[in-house]
C-alpha cells in the first residue's frame, strides 16, 4: 500500500527531474501546475508519462486535461495505484 504522502513526494521528485529549473521551488498539493509551476503542455506530458512508468499505472488521456493542481495528479495516481 503506497500512502498519499509517498505519492506526493515521488510526484514532486519527478517534476524536479523533468523541469530542473523548478528545483528549490516549493510544490504543494494546491500548486496549479501550469501557472504556479510553469510547466507547459509538453512538459506536463513528460511528467505524466514518467509518473505512469514510476507507479505502473495508466491515466486515460482524456483525464489529463482535468489535472490542474498537483493534488489532482496525486488523486489520479492514488485512485489507480492501490487497486
Amino acid at each position, binding site marked *: 500500500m503506497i500512502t498519499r504522502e509517498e505519492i506526493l513526494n515521488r510526484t514532486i521528485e519527478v517534476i524536479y527531474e523533468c523541469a530542473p529549473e523548478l528545483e528549490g521551488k516549493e510544490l504543494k498539493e494546491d500548486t496549479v501546475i501550469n501557472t504556479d509551476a510553469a510547466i507547459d503542455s509538453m512538459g506536463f*506530458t513528460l511528467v505524466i508519462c514518467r509518473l505512469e512508468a514510476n507507479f505502473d499505472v495508466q491515466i486515460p*488521456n482524456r483525464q489529463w486535461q482535468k489535472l490542474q493542481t498537483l493534488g489532482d495528479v496525486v488523486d489520479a495516481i492514488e485512485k489507480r495505484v492501490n487497486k
Partner: protein
Amino acid sequence: MRFRSFDHLLSHQAREIPGLPALIYGRDRQICTYGDLYREVLKRADQWRGSGKTCLGVLCDGSFDCVCTIFAANLAGLQVVLLDENVPDEQLPGLIVYTDIDALWGDEELARELAEHLARNGGLPPMQGGLGSGRILFFTSGTTEAAKAVVLTDGSLCASAFNGGAKLPLTREDRLLCLLPLGHVFGFVCGLLWGLSCGAAVALGRGMRHYLEDFAHFSPTAVSLVPTLLGFLLQKNALNPELKLVLVGAGDCPPALLAAAAGRGLRISFGYGLTETSSGVAISVQGDPFAMEICPDDTITLAEDGEILIQAPTCMMQGYYKKPADTGAVLRDGILHTGDLGTFDAEGRLHITGRKKEILVLPDGTKLFLPEYEAAIAKALGTPELALILRSGRPVLVLSGPARDKAEILKSLTPVTAQRPRGQQITDIVFLNEPLPRTATGKLRRWALQNRLEEQP
C-alpha cells in the same frame, strides 16, 4: 499525382507499388504494403456498407486500425467525423448529437451507450447530404462554445495533399512519421495523406507517451510538427540522425525555434493553412522559412486592410456543418476571408504579419477564442481594461494600471481558468501603466499591444 478520392489514391498505389510499405506501425514495426492496405480497406468497407450506419465518429488514436477505419467508412459512403481522442467526456455527447453520428469507433463503452440511446429513440432523422457524400468532418480547434465542424471531402483532402507534395515532394524511399492527431486536419493531411500520395512509407506514431522514442524507433526522414512539439523534441534531443525534413505548421512559430532546428542540419519548411482549406495553401520551400510560396491550386490576395483572402476551388470546405450563417460570414463567392493578416514580398511569397480576428493561435495548434475568455476574466477581476496576448507562445494577461500582486490575481482567476485546456492557462501578468491601445471605435488594437510589449524585455 493528383488523386480525386481516397479510393482513387489507395487503388492507384495498390496497382502501381503494391509491394512497397504504406504503413509501419506498432512496437514491432509491422509493415502493411500498399497492396495489403487497399485489400484491408476494401474488406472493412464492405462491413460498413452492410451496417446500416450513415455517420461514423472516429476517436482518432492514430493506430493502424484507426487509419483503416477512416478510409473504409469513407469508401463505404459514410460521413466520417474525426474527433480528437482526448476530447473530454462531457463534451463528447454534444459533438455526437451535433454531427449526426450514429456509430462510434475508438471507445467501446461509449459506442454501446450510443447504440442503445439511438435504439431507444428510434434512430436519427435523415442526415444532411445522405450516404456517398464523401464528407469528412474536422473540428476547428478551440473552446466548446466555438467548436464548429468543418465539412471537407476525401477529394478536398487529396487535393490538399497534392498541393503539399507539389511544393515539397517526398520520394518512395522516404519515411514520414505521423505524430500529430489525425483529428486535426494538419495531422491528417501532412502526417498521413502527404506520404501516401507520394508513395512514401508512413510510420504511425504510437501516441504522446512515445513522442520521445518514436524517432529512434521508426527512423523517419520527414515529419510534420506543431511548434510546441518541435521545441520539446529539440530540447530533449529526441530527433533521429536520418531525419532530413521538418514541416512546421498549425501555429505561430518563434523564429528562434526554426533557427535551432535548421542549426541541426534539418530542412525546415513552414506551412500556412486552415482547416477550412483542407490544410496548407502556402509553404516555404527554400531560404527564409517564413516566406511561403502559394500552392498550385490556390490563389491568395490581400484585402485593403491586409487580410488574407483565399480561393482554393479544389481544397475549400463545403461550409461549417449546420451553421450556414457562420459559413456565410467567412466564405463569400468562393473566397475565404481568413482573418489573418499578411504581405507579399518582391518574389510574391506570402508572409503572415498578424491576426485580424479575435483569436490567438497557440503553438500547439489550438485556438483561443478571446472575447468569451476576456469577458470571464473581466468579470472575475471587475475591470474591462485587460487583454490577452501571447508571449513565448503562452497566454499572458495584460492589465492596464499600476503593478499589483500577480500571485493574488492569478489565484483569483483560478475559477475562470481551471476548466480550460492546459495551453490556455494564463502564465503571467504584465502591467501597463497607460490605457490599452484602442481604435477610434474603442476596439482593442491587439497586435499593436503585442508589438509594444514584445519590445519590452
